[in-house]
């Protein structure tokens, strides 16, 4: 892992990798959504509105695993002092937050015809809302300092603490949600038929590759920003 700690090596590697990530991601997402939105069967209960699932479910998976990835990067930064890992926290956070927001909005849109309201305090939607807030905290904390390194450290610590608390939060939300005997309509069907599972998996894989591509692009941008700032500082020091 430390072989890639050198920013220049990462830049070279990512330059080669990025077109593939982006291209394959767009292709697979296009195929998955194409099949899912047009060619797959409608749900016997929900009709065509179930097609939002092909966007909503991958977004949920990516938001959750993105947070985990961010926390692992923060852990790597603190334990092994991996310099790029610290940047990865800032790279992943807004992308994960965006996917969480997509999940919430598509969930809300899905809920309107299914449950009749725009928002329901369903256990899973609520957990996703809390995850979105945790993302916002990490983003805000990273940007709250003049000294960028300080902000990254604080944001990384918050990500780690948030991950440890996440199971407790999810459990408490489920507990809270089952207190009032809500109607047990679940967001996904009982068992997913192959005709629906295939486009879902293709779409999920496509979105994952897109997630990776965007994170890699952000990493490259953040590294470029760091190098530009360092160059400016050197110039000021030389001129002074």
């Amino acid at each position, binding site marked *: 892992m430390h072989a890639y700690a050198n920013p220049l090596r990462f830049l070279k590697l990512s330059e080669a990798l990025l077109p593939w990530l982006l291209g394959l991601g767009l292709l697979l997402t296009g195929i998955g959504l194409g099949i899912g939105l047009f060619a797959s069967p409608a749900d016997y209960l929900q009709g065509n509105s179930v097609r939002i699932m092909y966007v909503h479910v991958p977004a949920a998976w990516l938001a959750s695993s993105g947070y985990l990835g961010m926390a692992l990067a923060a852990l790597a930064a*603190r334990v092994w002092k991996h310099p790029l890992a610290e940047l990865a926290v800032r790279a992943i956070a807004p992308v994960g937050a965006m996917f969480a927001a997509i999940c919430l909005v598509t969930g809300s849109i899905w809920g309107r015809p299914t449950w009749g309201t725009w928002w329901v305090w369903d256990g899973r939607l609520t957990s996703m809302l*809390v995850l979105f*807030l*945790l993302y*916002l*905290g990490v983003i*805000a*904390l990273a940007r*709250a*300092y003049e000294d960028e390194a*300080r*902000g990254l*450290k*604080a944001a990384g*610590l*918050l990500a*780690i*603490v*948030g991950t*440890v*608390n996440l199971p*407790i*939060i999810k*459990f*408490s*939300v489920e*507990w*809270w949600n089952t*207190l009032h005997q809500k109607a047990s309509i679940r967001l996904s069907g009982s068992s997913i038929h192959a005709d629906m599972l295939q486009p879902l998996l293709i779409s999920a894989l496509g979105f994952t590759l897109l997630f990776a591509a965007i994170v890699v692009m952000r990493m490259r941008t953040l590294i470029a920003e760091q190098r530009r700032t360092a160059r400016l500082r050197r110039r000021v020091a030389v001129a002074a």
Partner: protein
Amino acid sequence: MLALVRRDLALIAGRPGEWLLPVLFFLLVAISFPFALGPDAGLLAQVAPGIAWVAALLASLLPVSTLYAGDAADGTLDQLAVRRIAGETLAVARMVAMWIAFALPLLIALPVAAIMLALPMDRLPLLALGLALGTFGLAALAGMAAAFTLGARGGGGLVALVIVPLALPLLIFGSRPDEPGALRLLAASALLLVAISPFATAQALKAARS
């Protein structure tokens, strides 16, 4: 560590505003709700424990900005580091001191809030016990957030954004003390926060010093 707790309490005792204002804020929030929801005692009695908990949570955000700022400004943090006193020790001491300065006045003010919110008196002991336990979790979160945001821009909003999502389990379990198992789950959530907080706080204080 006892010396640190004593020092904190002595400092707070010299500045009564520091422990009076959060309690006043708690009462202010609590009595805002009847104005907003209407004076119907039936409705208020139903939502009273929840209101008390939200008010406690919001009141615990107030001391956060000053928890470590003074020590950072006058060099006490560096002094403690030089003397090899672990950041974790300081964090636990500050958590204990904050619990004494925040939770005890809160528990004294709780019956007043309960009366204002039409809470039946027989439900008060469980609510009080829940708050006594849960405020350990709130103090843990406050200390952690204080260390994370030491010297940051963003003020109270940033602190709220850091604390509130992590405090939701406390809120969920604490505001329903009559539910079976709720108090134990509340104690468990608070214990987890108390266990994690000193380590996270110490790491953040170390980052702040460099």
